[in-house]
C-alpha cells in the first residue's frame, strides 16, 4: 500500500508521523495465518483464547533447543551459563516491556492462572482470618474467582463481588462501596476476556490503596492489546500469560511488589528455589528464584522474550489504532446481521465482539462458521457468573488481534448470514 499517499505533507523538521499500520506485513510474520482449513483460508478470530505466534518466537524456541539447550543456574560449563544468560536476559526484557520497577519482581509461572494461585496461596492465605473479604468483579474469568474461593474456604474469608452494568462495564461506585475494613485484596481483570471491556484499573487501584488494600490485576487479555505499564497502573500484583501475547504456551508472569514478594513464603518446594537444604531445615533462595521451584520452561521463557521483542519493535500506537478501527467495523458488521445482539457494549473495549443470534445457540454458530474456516469461540468463556449476570447462557465471541483484518470481519458477517440460512432463521 502506498502509505505516504494517505498522509498530508509534513512541515519540515516535524517529528516523523507514524506510518499507517501494515497489517499484511504483520501477517507475513505469522506462518499459521497462511494456512487453510478444509481448503479455505484460515480466519482466526479466537485470539482472546490464545494468540498465534510470529516466526521470531517459533525460531527462538526452536533455536534454543537446537543450539542452546542446557539447564540453567547451576551449570559451570559454558552451554549452561549461556542458557542462564538467555533465561535471565528474557526476564530483564520482559520486565522492561511490562515497565516493572525491577526485574527481580518478575516471577516466571506457567501462566496467569498459576500466577493468581501463587498470590492466593502465598500472599493472601497466611493473612486471612474468618470474616475477611476478598473483592473481585462480576466479570472475572474463573481463574480470578476460584483461587480466591479456595483460600476463602480454607480460612473462613468471604468473596465479595463488585457489580457490572448491563453494558458490561464495571460499576466503580459499586466496587468502592464494597471496599471496607475487612477487605484484604482487590482482584480484577484489566480487560474482560468475554466482552473486551477495559476496566479503569488506575482508578480502582487509587480507591483500594486509599483504604490500604492491595490490588492484583489480571493482565492476561491486556498484555497483547495495551501498552503494559505496571508502574503507571500502580498495582501490587500483575499476572499475564505468554501464549496470549504471541509467546509460547506454558509460560507466564507474575509481577509482585518487591516488599510483598520478600515477605511471602515459597509456594512450591524443590530444586533451584533453595539457599541450603538439610533434613532439619532449609532456607530459601532470593526473590524471584524462591518462587521458581524445579526446572522452569526455559525455552518458553526464551520464546516469551522473543515475543516482547517482536511487540516492542512494532509501532504500538498504530497497532492500537488498527485494533480500535477493526473493533468498530466488526461490531457494526456483526450487529447488522438480522437477529444479532451484541453482548458487552462498553465504550472502552479491546477488539472482542461477543454476541448472541436470535434462536441459534452459539455452539451451532461456531460449528457452521468453522465450515468456512472461521474460528470463533462459543460458550461461557470461563465466566459463568458474568453470563448469569447478563442473562445469557452463552455467547459467540470473535476476538481480534493485531494481525486481524477488515476482510476477516467481512468473512465473519457473511458467515453469520450463512448460519441463518443453515438454521432456517
Amino acid at each position: 500500500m502506498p502509505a505516504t499517499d494517505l498522509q498530508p505533507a509534513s512541515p519540515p523538521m516535524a517529528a516523523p508521523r507514524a506510518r499507517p499500520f501494515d497489517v499484511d506485513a504483520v501477517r507475513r510474520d505469522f506462518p499459521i495465518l497462511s494456512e487453510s482449513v478444509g481448503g479455505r483460508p484460515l480466519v482466526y478470530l479466537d485470539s482472546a483464547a490464545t494468540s498465534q505466534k510470529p516466526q521470531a518466537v517459533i525460531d527462538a524456541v526452536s533455536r534454543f533447543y537446537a543450539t542452546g539447550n542446557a539447564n540453567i543456574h547451576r551449570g559451570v560449563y559454558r552451554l549452561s551459563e549461556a542458557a542462564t544468560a538467555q533465561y535471565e536476559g528474557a526476564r530483564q526484557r520482559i520486565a522492561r516491556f511490562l515497565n516493572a520497577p525491577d526485574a527481580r519482581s518478575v516471577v516466571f509461572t506457567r501462566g496467569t492462572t498459576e500466577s493468581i494461585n501463587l498470590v492466593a496461596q502465598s500472599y493472601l492465605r497466611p493473612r486471612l482470618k474468618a470474616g475477611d473479604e476478598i473483592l473481585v468483579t462480576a466479570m472475572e474469568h474463573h481463574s480470578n474467582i476460584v483461587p480466591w474461593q479456595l483460600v476463602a474456604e480454607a480460612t473462613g474469608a468471604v468473596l465479595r463481588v463488585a457489580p457490572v452494568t448491563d453494558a458490561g462495564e464495571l460499576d466503580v461506585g459499586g466496587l468502592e462501596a464494597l471496599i471496607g475494613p475487612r477487605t484484604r485484596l482487590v482482584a480484577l481483570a484489566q480487560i474482560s476476556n468475554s466482552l473486551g471491556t477495559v476496566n479503569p484499573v488506575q482508578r480502582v487501584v487509587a480507591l483500594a490503596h486509599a483504604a490500604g488494600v492491595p490490588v492484583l490485576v489480571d493482565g492476561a487479555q491486556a498484555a497483547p492489546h495495551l501498552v503494559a505499564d505496571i508502574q503507571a497502573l500502580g498495582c501490587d500484583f500483575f499476572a499475564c500469560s505468554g501464549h496470549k501475547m504471541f509467546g509460547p504456551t506454558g509460560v507466564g508472569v507474575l509481577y509482585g511488589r518487591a516488599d510483598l514478594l520478600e515477605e511471602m513464603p515459597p509456594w512450591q518446594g524443590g530444586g533451584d528455589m533453595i539457599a541450603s537444604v538439610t533434613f532439619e531445615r532449609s532456607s530459601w533462595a532470593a526473590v524471584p528464584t524462591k518462587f521458581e521451584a524445579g526446572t522452569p520452561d526455559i525455552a518458553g521463557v526464551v520464546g516469551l522474550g522473543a515475543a516482547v521483542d517482536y511487540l516492542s519493535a512494532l509501532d504500538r500506537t498504530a497497532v492500537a489504532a488498527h485494533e480500535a478501527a477493526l473493533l468498530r467495523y466488526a461490531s457494526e458488521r456483526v450487529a447488522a446481521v438480522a437477529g444479532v445482539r451484541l453482548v458487552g457494549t462498553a465504550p472502552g473495549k479491546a477488539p472482542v465482539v461477543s454476541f448472541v443470534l436470535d434462536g441459534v445457540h452459539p455452539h451451532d454458530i461456531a460449528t457452521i462458521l468453522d465450515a468456512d474456516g472461521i474460528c470463533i469461540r462459543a460458550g461461557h468463556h470461563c465466566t459463568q457468573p458474568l453470563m448469569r449476570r447478563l442473562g445469557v447462557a452463552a455467547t459467540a465471541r470473535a476476538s481480534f488481534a493485531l494481525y486481524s483484518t477488515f476482510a476477516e470481519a467481512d468473512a465473519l458477517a457473511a458467515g453469520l448470514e450463512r448460519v441463518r440460512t443453515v438454521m432456517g432463521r
Partner: protein
Amino acid sequence: MSNLSELYQSVILDHNRSPRNCRSMADADADAEGYNPLCGDRLRVWVRLGAGDVIEDVSFEGIGCAISQASASLMTTTVKGRTRAEALDLFTRFHDLVAGDPGPDAPPGLGKLTVFAGVREYPSRVKCASLAWHALRSALEGGTPRPHS
C-alpha cells in the same frame, strides 16, 4: 458443506425449533439433570414408569444447542412406550452411532435417531447429542445425576 448439511438435517432443525415433550412433569417417578460443564448447557429429564417398567411418559426442559435440543426431543419420542431395559439398550446403540468406531452401517434399531450419524464428524459435539441420554439413564438408574462421558 456436505458435512454441515448432514449435521443440520431438516429433522434436527425441526425438532430444535419445535421440541416435542418439552415440559416439566409433576407426577414423574424420576428425574435427573444433564450438565455439560464445557459449555454450560443444562437440561432435566423426567420419566414416569408404568407396569412392566414401561416408560409411560418422558419429558425434558433445558437450554442447549440445536443438536442437544433435537436429540432430547427425538429421544423422548423414541423411548416413550419402551421398557427401561429397551431405553438403556437404545442409549448404547445411540452412543455407538455418534461416538463409536465408524462402521459401514448404523447400529440397528435406531429408527429416526440415525439422523444424528453426522455428529460423529464433530467430536466436540458428541456431548451435545448425548447430554439428554445421559440424563435419561441417570433418571432410569435411580435419579442420581452422574458425570457423563
